[in-house]
């Protein structure tokens, strides 16, 4: 069962586990040590890891993955409304729905490749967004978003005689509150992220992963050797759709509201950015990219002049004024600008994403090592 993972892989998993579980400690000095943002980090990391299985391994650039995220969200909230506030039930149902949608959309879209595939997935996602926004309002509650209500039936919870709280109940994992802004919500997402990360390593190292890489390098050659790439592609598409559905389910588990705009093309584009920023085809890259983008979005956008004035307090008056004015361009409403600059710098100087940067730094420090290791380092970046 644990056969095809090397010692390095296990060390990576162990290190990843420690980093994720200790996030409240090392993120606190960075201003991101509160549950809501750490949950977002985990959720979007899962989304990006799943996206990377498709894009990183097969090279098929899907521009509609947010649709599965949305499907997972809506499915999750409906489970809360109709049956139970237990997150296990909602997550399972979200996975089933997202998987089904991925199967159908994947089956149709994968008839084409390259830019045509991207456009097809984009079209499907936009179609689903628009339908969710208006026509399907009875199911999705349109612009307002699908929310829990006091009058929801919650048949299973009521049948089991769950304690009636005043106000809306919180989502729970067998009695532990997941929503409501507590640490359990984060640890729930963190554990699932670690499991997803482990599964993604297993896929990367498996013969199945090798097939997916073969599709990326030369599909025609693969066909000549007697393999049909279609089933592999579809499987990869569904797996990454499941990851997206899982991310959607976790989003509503930690914060039970599903809105149509999380299916919009900008949301699909965001996960592409995350993956490219971190490093396409690498194991850790998507996680880094997702964390970085969510960090910019939430922390940089909240800097205002008061905070800047406090930060540059040590400078003399005139200089401080200049420093505040200048840095104000890049924070607050200017956070998009900062993100854009970072993205441009990474794409121009480190086409392999941040992971390539890390690999280069590592190569600098380990010149004394044998050539084998250097070769492996470049493989990690280019995978």
């Amino acid at each position: 069962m644990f056969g095809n993972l090397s010692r390095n892989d296990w060390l990576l998993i162990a290190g990843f586990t420690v980093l994720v579980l200790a996030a409240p400690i090392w993120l606190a000095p960075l201003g991101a040590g509160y549950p809501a943002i750490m949950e977002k980090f985990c959720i979007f990391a899962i989304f990006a890891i799943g996206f990377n299985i498709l894009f990183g391994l097969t090279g098929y650039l899907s521009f509609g993955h947010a649709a599965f995220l949305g499907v997972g969200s809506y499915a999750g909230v409906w489970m809360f409304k109709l049956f139970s506030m237990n997150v296990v039930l909602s997550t399972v149902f979200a996975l089933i729905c997202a998987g089904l949608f991925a199967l159908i959309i994947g089956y149709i879209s994968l008839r084409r490749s390259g830019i045509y595939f991207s456009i097809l997935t984009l079209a499907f996602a936009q179609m689903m967004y628009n339908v969710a926004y208006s026509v399907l309002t009875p199911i999705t509650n349109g612009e307002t978003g699908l929310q829990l209500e006091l009058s929801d039936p919650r048949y299973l919870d009521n049948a089991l005689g769950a304690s009636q709280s005043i106000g809306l109940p919180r989502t729970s994992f067998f009695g532990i509150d997941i929503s409501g802004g507590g640490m359990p919500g984060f640890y729930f997402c963190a554990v699932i992220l670690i499991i997803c990360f482990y599964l993604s390593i297993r896929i990367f190292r498996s013969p199945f992963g090798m097939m997916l890489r073969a599709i990326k390098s030369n599909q025609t050659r693969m066909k000549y050797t007697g393999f049909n790439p279609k089933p592999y592609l579809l499987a990869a598409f569904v797996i990454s759709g499941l990851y997206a559905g899982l991310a959607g389910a976790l989003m509503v588990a930690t914060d039970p509201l599903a809105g149509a705009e999380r299916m919009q093309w900008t949301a699909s584009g965001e996960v592409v950015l995350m993956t490219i920023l971190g490093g396409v085809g690498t194991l850790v890259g998507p996680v880094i990219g997702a964390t970085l983008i969510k960090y910019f979005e939430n922390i940089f956008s909240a800097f205002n002049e008061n905070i800047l004035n406090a930060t540059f307090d040590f400078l003399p008056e005139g200089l401080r004024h200049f420093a505040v004015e200048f840095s104000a361009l890049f924070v607050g409403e200017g956070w998009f600008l900062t993100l854009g600059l970072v993205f441009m710098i990474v794409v121009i100087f480190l086409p392999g994403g941040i992971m390539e940067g890390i690999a280069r730094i590592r190569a600098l420090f380990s010149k004394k090592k044998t050539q084998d290791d250097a070769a492996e380092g470049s493989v990690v970046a280019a995978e």
Partner: protein
Amino acid sequence: MSKLTLSRRRLLKAGAATGVALGAPLHFVKGAYAQDKMSCNMPTGSEVVLGFNVPQSGPYADEGADELRAYQMAVDILNGDSDADAISAFSGAGNLKGNGILGKKVTYVTGDTQTKSDAARASAQKMIEDGGAIMITGGSSSGVAIAVQSLCQERGVIFMAALTHSNDTTGKDKKRYGFRHFFNAYMSGEALGSVLAEEYGKERTAYHLTADYTWGWTQEESIKNATEKQGWQTAQAVRTPLGAGDFSQYITPVLNSGADVLVLNHYGKDMVNSLTQAVQFGLREKQVNGKDFQVVVPLFSELMAQGAGSAIKGILGTANWDWKLNNAGTKAFTQAFGKKYGQPPSQAAQTAFAQTILYADACERAGTFYAPEVIAALEGYEHDGLGNGPTLYRAEDHQCFKDVLVVQGKDDPKDKFDLLEIRKIVPRDEVTYDPSIFGGDLGPADAKQC
């Protein structure tokens, strides 16, 4: 290659143990705060934090920027950093002493809603969990306001909504912790109905173009009901996709429908586009049924008027407030705002300012930051002098009731802040409705710990 032997059970155990070990200290910290009469984020030091959650990017960034100006001004007044001229006419001005709220200095955190529910909720969560905000205010879209309002209800933090016009905010989706000062689509309909009948006669046939989502639908319904009460007929109501850009295919059939009034239930860029195109098609020069063809835009904002340019001239609509109003509260606020920022405030700024002042005033009257008692102080609160005339915060649905303005695009504006003129001030009695017509449930006011 050597392999690390690690059983699944051991891995799980280690993971769970790490989780418990890391979670434990936080659990104790949380318990330490729990005491009687504590609600979420009640200040324990010398400062109280407010959360200003406004769109800083996206289509409503201009409104968001104006709201932030108003919030900054309100904070300066509350802290006594600037004189209190702007609230000199406010009936509760005596409660605000210029020493913060309840003697605690007011500080604030800001965030970007991007006019997206998810981003707005993430930003509000940051304010509550990281910033320690005791009250959140802002927003410039009904979807966002409703999403943030339900989050605030869940966390036990008071939400003072700014720009949101949908009936649902204080109707179907009303919440005990949410309060709205702005008016809604129903009031627009009631106010506009009688003026339309006076202006254009009682025998008219209307054709609606409606943005295809909840806000558009509630407004279409409200306007339809109000105009049909005046004897109008409705030829057809056509839904247009959001952000359509080109409305020509929807405007062409209007003339052949026998309708002589076009009602545009659009907002923002959609309204700018559809109105401009309707005017370009020459609809307003046409004669139908022996009457001049008319266009009506039920919800106006200064920003939309600026976008539509000359097409707005003579068009009737409604507004929550306008800086040209002739009352003491408006004059004081407009003057102070102009002195500080060099331009008149928009209605978004006015509602944002009023909400902050009303919250501070409610805390002072309640004598505590304890959320259930602040809510009780706001419910049913009758006040005056913030620019809208006598205003009631109705206890049943947390909606403010005040006069509604019917405005018309000016024929010869002086500058870009002078595009609208006030046609009629519809008294509050005429726009007051029974809170039960929209359903919904406020929910409990129990204090939450966080």
